[in-house]
């Protein structure tokens, strides 16, 4: 099981705090497609454009930003934890 948690604007958009996806060795892109199907909300289009993550949302795989891994091609395994969060930039 892959556990995905959502925060702030995404939590409001998806109307849920977390989702479990039963999968192993899938890309982040595929995972987002699975989440979109499961939640019936188009998460992928909300945070990505043509399969590329729009700057402004961070996706953490076990506490590391996928931007510094293989981006949307990063492989997610059974038991991994994903956090998706659009951080506040203002001060």
């Amino acid at each position, binding site marked *: 099981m892959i556990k995905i948690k959502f*925060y702030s604007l995404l939590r409001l958009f998806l109307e849920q705090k977390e989702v479990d996806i039963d999968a192993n060795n899938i890309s982040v892109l595929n995972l987002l497609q699975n989440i979109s199907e499961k939640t019936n909300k188009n998460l992928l289009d909300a945070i990505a454009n043509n399969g590329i993550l729009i700057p402004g949302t961070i996706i953490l795989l076990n506490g590391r930003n996928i931007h510094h891994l293989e981006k949307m091609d990063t492989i997610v395994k059974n038991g991994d934890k994903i956090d998706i969060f659009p951080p*506040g930039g*203002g*001060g």
Partner: protein
Amino acid sequence: MDIFSRNTKFWGDEKQKILANSSILIAGVGGLGCAVAEILVRAGIGKLILIDNDIIEISNLNRQILFDQNDIGKPKVDVAKYKLKAINPELKVEVFKKDVSELTNLHLPHFEGIADCLDNYESRFILNDALKDNQFLVHGGVKNDFGQITTIKNEVTQDLKQIFGEQNDEVEPGIIPQTVITIGSLITHEIINNLFDKPLLLNKLLIVELSDFSVFKINLKK
């Protein structure tokens, strides 16, 4: 009785002395910076170094609690210094009316830690690069009715660029006063935790959402 008598009733004279002997660099004297500076002064910090290049505008007054109508058009750092010293005349304040991009060219005095109260990630990454091994940085950022906080230390945590990756800085996002003052208070609490050598947000990203009073901690991996 002195200004800090109610503080020492809680944390004692020794910790009050640690604060009195400490210096914090506040980068950005906007919504977060005003709240952090004022709370640090009321907590008993000995010295503040303020960096901000802006002047006070009318649209700042919804959240920048050190400023009022009489201050419009004046440099933020100068007004902040005046207001903060009015709370505690013994406070030492050094001000730099400069942009953070000029940080490496400035001759800054000694400080224990940095409060990241900036309003864009490009500047935050520059600020993080200036962090020395014996210092800490407490990051805060806000938007709408939520915000996040974490402590950064070289060799102990990821840096801000590793955590936040690529960010498009939104020009003037919606920010309401209760969000910025809440996050500013929590940044200050973590700064004081660091000064007392007990940081709670190393390798943790605290997310606070006022929409339903939710608080989350995401574990970050070094």
